[in-house]
């Protein structure tokens, strides 16, 4: 990354609305960064988003689009609460975006299913959910293991091998691409300076103002939020934040459009509002390799989808995605503010759609207030040091 001074800066690719110091700035224009930036703009006037180029390790593009509560929080009940709070705020986020842009983001909160395909999976799932919900301090919601017969009423076409599925009414889905589009359209309408091709080289704090060095010159802001996924680690070091994240590959199979028939999404199979189908998801520790799609994983994904809904076997696979999730050590989000650089925050997670509402409507106001409240303590990186000491 170049260390150009303002004097030597290249002509920026897009003119900025605001030339001075921003009230708040987000580094990273994916789902997390864009949701935070949107939320910030509802509180303050001058907001910027610094993004990279067209080809970056864009986790957001591989997103399944679940707004999912079920299964979350084993080992950290606070995460269960956090997820539920986002679920509850999602309609408000969708309404705000629609009001500002006229666009819909495909939010459907009609419940969700986690399928099990044999007796072993059935037993394991009940055990897991029981343990999860039994954790002290865990958020409460109704869940039920539906048997095959009950499933058949809910999902016509369910495969005979699907012995059951855990159902909650709080789960749902949104359209992640429509989300991104709506957020960016909102930026345009509300004059947020979305600046692509502005990778950040250095961050310094001088007299309380953060200075980000980019190839197009230095950009300044009173507050900065790191939301650049896998890049948070490098940037965090510059503002006294140690953010251990690693890439975890996920692959998704995409089917062509069909007439809409699946209205209750599975965690592994859903039909988008416009008719295409998504099949997920894999978890592979494959390093920084998001370009190569592995055939055996696609076969396993396809196989399970066909068992879940046999009628799909004639529908055509048109694409696969391979994207890198941003994984912390324990898989839970990291929200933290810097002790050495007050005003610098980090927000990272791998459930960018589920948590978008919390990011926009809870994290952003916290950033403006200048501090994360104590309730957010479980999400700081101090939890890793505690683990190490133990």
């Amino acid at each position, binding site marked *: 990354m170049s260390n150009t001074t303002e004097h030597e800066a290249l002509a920026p690719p897009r003119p900025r609305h605001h030339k001075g110091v921003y009230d708040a700035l987000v580094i990273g224009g994916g789902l997390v960064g864009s949701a935070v930036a949107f939320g910030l703009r509802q509180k303050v006037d001058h907001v910027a988003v610094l993004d990279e180029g067209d080809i970056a390790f864009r986790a957001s593009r591989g997103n399944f689009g679940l707004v999912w509560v079920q299964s979350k929080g084993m080992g950290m009940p606070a995460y269960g609460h956090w997820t539920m709070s986002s679920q509850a705020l999602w309609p408000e986020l969708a309404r705000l975006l629609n009001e500002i842009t006229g666009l819909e983001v495909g939010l459907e909160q009609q419940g969700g299913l986690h399928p099990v395909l044999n007796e072993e999976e059935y037993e394991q799932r009940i055990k897991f959910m029981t343990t999860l919900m039994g954790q002290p301090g865990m958020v409460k919601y109704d869940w039920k293991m539906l048997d095959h017969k009950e499933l058949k009423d809910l999902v*016509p*076409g369910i495969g005979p091998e699907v012995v059951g599925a855990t159902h909650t009414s709080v789960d749902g889905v949104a359209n992640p691409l429509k989300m991104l589009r709506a957020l960016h359209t909102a930026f345009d309408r509300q004059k947020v300076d979305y600046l692509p091709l502005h990778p950040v080289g250095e961050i310094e704090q001088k007299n309380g103002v953060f200075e980000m060095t980019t190839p197009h010159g230095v950009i300044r802001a009173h507050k900065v939020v790191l939301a650049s996924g896998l890049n948070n680690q490098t940037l965090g070091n510059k503002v006294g934040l140690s953010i251990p994240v690693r890439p975890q590959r996920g692959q998704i199979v995409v089917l*062509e*459009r*069909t*007439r809409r*028939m699946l209205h209750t999404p599975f965690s592994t199979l859903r039909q988008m509002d*416009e*008719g295409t189908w998504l099949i997920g998801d894999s978890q592979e520790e494959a390093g920084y390799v998001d370009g190569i799609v592995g055939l055996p994983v696609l076969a396993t994904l396809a196989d399970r989808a066909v068992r879940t809904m046999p*009628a*799909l076997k*004639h*529908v*055509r696979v048109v694409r696969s995605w391979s994207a890198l999730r941003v994984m912390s050590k324990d898989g839970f989000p990291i929200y933290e503010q810097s002790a050495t650089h007050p005003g610098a925050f980090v927000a990272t997670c791998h459930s960018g759609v589920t948590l978008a509402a919390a990011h926009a409507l809870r994290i952003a106001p916290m950033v403006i207030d200048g501090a994360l409240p104590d309730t957010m303590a479980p999400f700081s990186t101090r939890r890793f040091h505690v683990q190490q000491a133990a």
Partner: protein
Amino acid sequence: MFNRLPEAQQALALAPVVVTINGETVRCRAGDSVAAALLAAGLNECRDTAVKDLPRGPFCLMGICYDCLVMIDDQPNQQGCMIPVRSGMKIERQQGAREVQA
């Protein structure tokens, strides 16, 4: 409208392949693709698009545009230009996005 040259017409007359297109019986030349048979029968369009419900017909004839999609023997979204006609084949317009039979 596409017409057969005499040599092709003779081949058809010698050994016609009989199919139905939208319910009507049509005689084709063995070896013709479904798309070619449609065009020879005077049909420039074969489907309605999934997004805006607009008519489309074969465009590239070499298997890469996916505009020649038709229903063949009740199977939706078949590429007409890549499939040869077969005796008794039922060819129908592909109307928008396909159905999934639950």
